[in-house]
């Protein structure tokens, strides 16, 4: 089986508990979506890590380009006022 040539790569998202959101845990090879779920079950949930699995073809993901990092991300570096650190939190609220 020339698997690596014709098997797609899938990104795997696992929800560890009900109420939490799915988190990206890694990627794997599989011939189709159903087998991707089965593979994800075997590769990523063997130690009771999850209650739900999402699989997404890696090719369906559009990623930001590293070349764009400056215009995308640096403008927020000098805008400390966007962090809610200037509020006085009343004692009754306790730890936030």
């Amino acid at each position, binding site marked *: 089986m020339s698997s*690596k040539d014709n098997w797609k790569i899938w990104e795997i998202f696992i929800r560890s508990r009900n109420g939490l959101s799915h988190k990206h845990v890694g990627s*794997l*090879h599989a011939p189709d979506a*159903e087998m991707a779920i*089965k*593979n994800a079950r*075997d*590769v990523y949930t063997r130690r009771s890590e999850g209650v739900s699995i999402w699989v997404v073809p890696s090719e369906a993901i559009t990623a930001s380009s590293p070349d764009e990092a400056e215009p995308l991300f640096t403008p927020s570096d000098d805008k400390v006022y966007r962090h809610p650190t200037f509020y006085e939190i009343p004692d009754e609220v306790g730890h936030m």
Partner: protein
Amino acid sequence: MKAQLLEYTLRLGDNALILGQRLGEWCGHGPILEQDIALSNIALDQLGQARMLMQYAAEQKGGDFTEDKVAFLRPETEYHNCLLVELENGDWGRTIVRQFLFDTYNYFFYSALLSSADNRLQEIAQKAIKEITYHAQWSAEWLIRLGDGTEESHQRVQRSLNDLWEWTGELFSMDAVDEALLAEGIAVNLAEIKVQWDQKVNEILSLATLKRPEDAWMQSGGKQGEHSEYLGYVLAVMQHLPRMYPEATW
């Protein structure tokens, strides 16, 4: 009655242990990392089931018997697994066909064992059925993809199916042990699960575009301790360490 229950327990335990050992041979050799892990997982599930059954067998034997002694100190002729599980892995397709034929049988077998009159077997079945349900889905999905895959994968699994078919008759042949325990409500009625097995196998083979082989002469003997030439080699590998170093511990 006691001797029959012990033999019955060993038949189930040996099926799980020998198949687990065979699948373990794939560890590190799977066609791709993901399938390597999947088969190793199934091997470990089988081993877990074998342990529960062998603990039960050791209790029935009494004295200082332990699950390890049951697994590692019995010779070939005292093993009671069906012949199908001891056969060589062959290529990936052949392993999948063997797994599919056995998992489908095992699924209906353990579903029926859930209502066994023997409490202990019933408890074991409750634990095992979840794993076995997954195994049966997994090997059926694979068989469909290989059968309905490329020309080469189709030919290979069809050939394996033709080769392995003669080893499936034994799964459903009832002998004196089966009959006696069935009368007590302990054993599974193999004639009943044969109907379910036929139906499921036909359904999956049709989805996989594979041709069901004609029923011809069937091999038998494993359940009664008469094995193929392969089991000796499986046991040699599996039992070598505990026999060479009886005091060895983790």
